[in-house]
C-alpha cells in the first residue's frame, strides 16, 4: 500500500540517467498492488480490452479483471501509482475508482468460507457412500454382509464426521462452557450418541446402525451453515468495497514540499493541505487560507460555515471553496470522529439484548429433546433392564428429533430474502437484521443526506428578475461552491445565457465578484454584500449601489424519499423526522413530505436519547441516517439503515446499507422482512409437525434407520422449498 504512494523516482531527468540506482531501488521496494473498482464492466470483451491495455503498460507485471466482483487487481512496479492506472482504464471508456487495498481483507473471510466448503464436500462424499451401503442393508443384506457394510460405513463416517463436524463441536463446547444451550448442543450430542451406539451395535453384529443418519445430518446442517456464511460474505465484501472506495490519504506540507501520505502516518503538529472538495483528515486549526466548510455530515446543518485563520476544524468536514492549510491537533483515534465511537459503543450494548428466532427455538427445543431422550432411555431401561436396547432407543429419539430442518429453517429463508433485497439495492449486513426489521413500528429519519441529497436547489428562481439571474449565472459558473452550482444548474435549465462580466475572481470563504460597465458585482455571503441574512439557506447578489437580491435554496429531495415515507405511513408506522438542521428548514421538509412529528437542532446525543426513550416506551425503532451525528442513534435503534453515501462510521453502525441513490426499497424491505419472518416461523412449525409424527415411533422403539433417513431428508427438503416460496 505504502509503495503506491511514493513519488516517481525519475522526477528529474538526471535521476533517470542513473539506471543502476533505479534497479537497486526497485529491488528494495515491494511491488505495488493496486485494486480498481470497475462498476460498468459487463462482458468478455471488456475483460480482454482492459487486461490487454493494462498489460501493455511497461511497468505492469500482471493484471487480472474479476467480472463477478467487477474489480481489477494489478501487480506493478513500485513507482506506478493507482491514479495512473485509473486514468488508463478511464481512457478506455470504463468508469474506474481506486480501492484501498488495505481495507479489502477478502482473504480472511474467504478462508472461513473455503474451510466450510471443504467440510461440506467431505461430508457430501461420505454421506453418498454411506447411504449407498445403507440402501443395501435396508433392502435385505444379512449376517456377515451386513456387518461388513456396517464396518465399511463406520470406516468412512468416523473420519468424515471428525473432520466435518468440527464447527458444531466447537460451538457446542463454547456454549456449554458458558453454561448455555444452543442449537449446536443437541446436534453434537445426537451425532456423537449415534456414532457411539452404532459402533457398539456393529461390534455386536446388531441390526441397526445410524452411521448414515449421523453423516447425512452433518451434511444437511453444514449446507445450512454454508448458505448462511455465503449470504453474509457477499454482504461483507460489498460493504468492504464501499469503505475501500474512500482511500484515506492526505497532502502533508513539509518544508514547503507537498507529499501524499496515508492518514495513519500523520502526527500532531503536521501541516496539511486540504484542497476544495477535500475532506478534513484530522482535527486541526486553520493556519492559512479562507474558505467555507460543509459540516452536514457531522451536524446535519446544510448551511456552509465560513472558515478563516485560527478556526478549529474537525475531521469529516468538507472544504468547499479555497485551499486551506491546517495544523493537526488530534490524529487517528483522538479525533472527534473517533470519539463518536464511544457513544456508539454505549448505544450498541442495548442491541445485544435481541435474541434471534433460531436462538429462541433452540432454548425451547434443546432441553425438551434432551429430557425426552433421557426419559425414553430410563423408561426402556427400567422396562427391559437391557442397556443396549435403551441406549439404542435414546439415540433414535435424538436423531429423529435432531434439528436438521431447524438448522436449515433460518439460513434458507435469509439467503432467499437477502438475495432478493440485494437485487433491489439493499445490503443486509447483520444476521438478525431481517427479523428485527420485521418488528419495526416506528421509523426515524435523519434529514440532511438521507431524505435530502445534501445538494441545494434554487427555490425562488421563478420570482427573480431575469437580468439578475443572468448576472448571477455569469458569476456562479466560475465557482465550484454547491450554492453557485445550484444557481448555474437552475439558470441553464431555464435556458438563460450569462451576461458578459469581466475580471471574475472567487474570494474563498466569501463569494465571487466581477466587473460590469465599471461597476462591481458580488455574489456571496450576506455580510460580504452588506445584506441582512435570512433564516433559510441563501446567497445574495449585489450590483453597484442597488439593494442586494437574495437567492434562496432548499435541499433537493433524494429520489424515492416521498414514496418511502408514504409507503411507511400506509403500513401504519409512526414516522418521525430528527435533524440537526435549523427549525425552518426541518419544518419545511416535514410539511412537504407529510411527516407529523419532527425535531430540529438535535445534537447527536439528543438523537440517541430520543431513540432510547422511544425504545423504552416499547417501540421498535428503525433509524435511517447517514451522518456522524446519527451514528449513536443508528446503533441505539432496534434496526438501522444508512445510504451508501453515508460516512464510513455510519455505515459500520447500521445493519442495512442502501446501495443505490433511491430510498424506495425501504418500504418494500419491511414487507419482505415480514414475509421472511413468517416463512421462518412456518418452517419451525413444519419441523415440529415432523417431530410430533416421528417421535412417538422413536420412543416406542419402532424407528429404524430407514425411517430416520426418510424423515430427515423429507423435512429438510420441505423446509428449503418453503423458503423458496418467499416473494
Amino acid at each position, binding site marked *: 500500500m505504502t509503495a503506491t504512494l511514493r513519488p516517481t523516482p525519475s522526477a528529474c531527468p538526471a535521476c533517470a540517467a542513473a539506471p543502476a540506482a533505479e534497479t537497486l531501488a526497485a529491488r528494495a521496494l515491494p511491488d505495488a498492488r493496486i485494486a480498481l473498482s470497475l462498476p460498468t464492466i459487463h*462482458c468478455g470483451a471488456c475483460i480482454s480490452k482492459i487486461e490487454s491495455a493494462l498489460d501493455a503498460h511497461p511497468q505492469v507485471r500482471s493484471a487480472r479483471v474479476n467480472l463477478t466482483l467487477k474489480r481489477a487487481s494489478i501487480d506493478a512496479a513500485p513507482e506506478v501509482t493507482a491514479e495512473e492506472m485509473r486514468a488508463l482504464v478511464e481512457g478506455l471508456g470504463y468508469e474506474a475508482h481506486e480501492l484501498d487495498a488495505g481495507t479489502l481483507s477478502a482473504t480472511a473471510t474467504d478462508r472461513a468460507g473455503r474451510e466450510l466448503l471443504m467440510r461440506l464436500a467431505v461430508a457430501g462424499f461420505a454421506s453418498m457412500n454411506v447411504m449407498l451401503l445403507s440402501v443395501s442393508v435396508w433392502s435385505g443384506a444379512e449376517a456377515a454382509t451386513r456387518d461388513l457394510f456396517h464396518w465399511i460405513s463406520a470406516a468412512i463416517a468416523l473420519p468424515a464426521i471428525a473432520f466435518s463436524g468440527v464447527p458444531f463441536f466447537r460451538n457446542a463446547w463454547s456454549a456449554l462452557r458458558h453454561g448455555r444451550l444452543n442449537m449446536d448442543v443437541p446436534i453434537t450430542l445426537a451425532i456423537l450418541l449415534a456414532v457411539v451406539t452404532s459402533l457398539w451395535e456393529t461390534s455386536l453384529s446388531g441390526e441397526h446402525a445410524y452411521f448414515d443418519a449421523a453423516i447425512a445430518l452433518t451434511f444437511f446442517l453444514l449446507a445450512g451453515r454454508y448458505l448462511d456464511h455465503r449470504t453474509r460474505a457477499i454482504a461483507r465484501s460489498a460493504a468492504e468495497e464501499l469503505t475501500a472506495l474512500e482511500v484515506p490519504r492526505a497532502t502533508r506540507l513539509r518544508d514547503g514540499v507537498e507529499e501524499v501520505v496515508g492518514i495513519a502516518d500523520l502526527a500532531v503538529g503536521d501541516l496539511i493541505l486540504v484542497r476544495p472538495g477535500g475532506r478534513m483528515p484530522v482535527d486541526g486549526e486553520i493556519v492559512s487560507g479562507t474558505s467555507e466548510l460543509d459540516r452536514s455530515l457531522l451536524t446535519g446543518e446544510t448551511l456552509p460555515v465560513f472558515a478563516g485563520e485560527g478556526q478549529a476544524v474537525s475531521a469529516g468536514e468538507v472544504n468547499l471553496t479555497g485551499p486551506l492549510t491546517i495544523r493537526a491537533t488530534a490524529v487517528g483515534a483522538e479525533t472527534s470522529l473517533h470519539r463518536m465511537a464511544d457513544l456508539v459503543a454505549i448505544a450498541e450494548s442495548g442491541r445485544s439484548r435481541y435474541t434471534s428466532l433460531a436462538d429462541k427455538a433452540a432454548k425451547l427445543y434443546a432441553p425438551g429433546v434432551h429430557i425426552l431422550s433421557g426419559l425414553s432411555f430410563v423408561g426402556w431401561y427400567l422396562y427391559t433392564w437391557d442397556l443396549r436396547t435403551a441406549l439404542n432407543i435414546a439415540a433414535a429419539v435424538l436423531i429423529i428429533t435432531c434439528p436438521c430442518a431447524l438448522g436449515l429453517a433460518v439460513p434458507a429463508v435469509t439467503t432467499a430474502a437477502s438475495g432478493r433485497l440485494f437485487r433491489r439495492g439493499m445490503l443486509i449486513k447483520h444476521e438478525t437484521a431481517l427479523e428485527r426489521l420485521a418488528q419495526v413500528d416506528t421509523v426515524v429519519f435523519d434529514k440532511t443526506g438521507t431524505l435530502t441529497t445534501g445538494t441545494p436547489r434554487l427555490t425562488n428562481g421563478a420570482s427573480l428578475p431575469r437580468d439578475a439571474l443572468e448576472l448571477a449565472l455569469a458569476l456562479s459558473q466560475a465557482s465550484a461552491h454547491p450554492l453557485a452550482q445550484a444557481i448555474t444548474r437552475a439558470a441553464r435549465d431555464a435556458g438563460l445565457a450569462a451576461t458578459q462580466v469581466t475580471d471574475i475572481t472567487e474570494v474563498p470563504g466569501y463569494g465571487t465578484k466581477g466587473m460590469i460597465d465599471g461597476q462591481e458585482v458580488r455574489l456571496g455571503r450576506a455580510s460580504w454584500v452588506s445584506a441582512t441574512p435570512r433564516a433559510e439557506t441563501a446567497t445574495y447578489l449585489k450590483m453597484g449601489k442597488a439593494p442586494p437580491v437574495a437567492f434562496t435554496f432548499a435541499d433537493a429531495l433524494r429520489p424515492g424519499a416521498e414514496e418511502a415515507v408514504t409507503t411507511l405511513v400506509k403500513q401504519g408506522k409512526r414516522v418521525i423526522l430528527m435533524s440537526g438542521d435549523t427549525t425552518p428548514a426541518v419544518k419545511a421538509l416535514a410539511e412537504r413530505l407529510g411527516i407529523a412529528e419532527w425535531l430540529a437542532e438535535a445534537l447527536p446525543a439528543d438523537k440517541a436519547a430520543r431513540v432510547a426513550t422511544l425504545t423504552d416506551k416499547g417501540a421498535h425503532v428503525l433509524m435511517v441516517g447517514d451522518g456522524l451525528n446519527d451514528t449513536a442513534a443508528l446503533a441505539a435503534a432496534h434496526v438501522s439503515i444508512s445510504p451508501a453515501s453515508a460516512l464510513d462510521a455510519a455505515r459500520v453502525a447500521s445493519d442495512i446499507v442502501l446501495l443505490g441513490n433511491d430510498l424506495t426499497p425501504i418500504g418494500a424491505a419491511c414487507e419482505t422482512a415480514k414475509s421472511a419472518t413468517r416463512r421462518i416461523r412456518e418452517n419451525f412449525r413444519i419441523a415440529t409437525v415432523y417431530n410430533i409424527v416421528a417421535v412417538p415411533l422413536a420412543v416406542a422403539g419402532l424407528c429404524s434407520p430407514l425411517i430416520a433417513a426418510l424423515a430427515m431428508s423429507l423435512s429438510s427438503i420441505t423446509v428449503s422449498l418453503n423458503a423458496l416460496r418467499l416473494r
Partner: protein
Amino acid sequence: MNILAYLIPISLILGGVGLVAFVYTVRSNQYDDPEGDARRILSNDWDDRPKP
C-alpha cells in the same frame, strides 16, 4: 459376493478422485470469478499460445 471385494474399493476410489478434484479446484481459486471465467473461455485472445 466376492465381487464386492473389488466393487466397493473401486466405487470409493472413484468417489475419492472426485473429492480430490473438487478440493483442488477450491484450492486453486477456481470459484473466485465464475462469471468472468465463463466469458474468458469464449475469448480468442490466447488461442495461439498460452498467456505468459
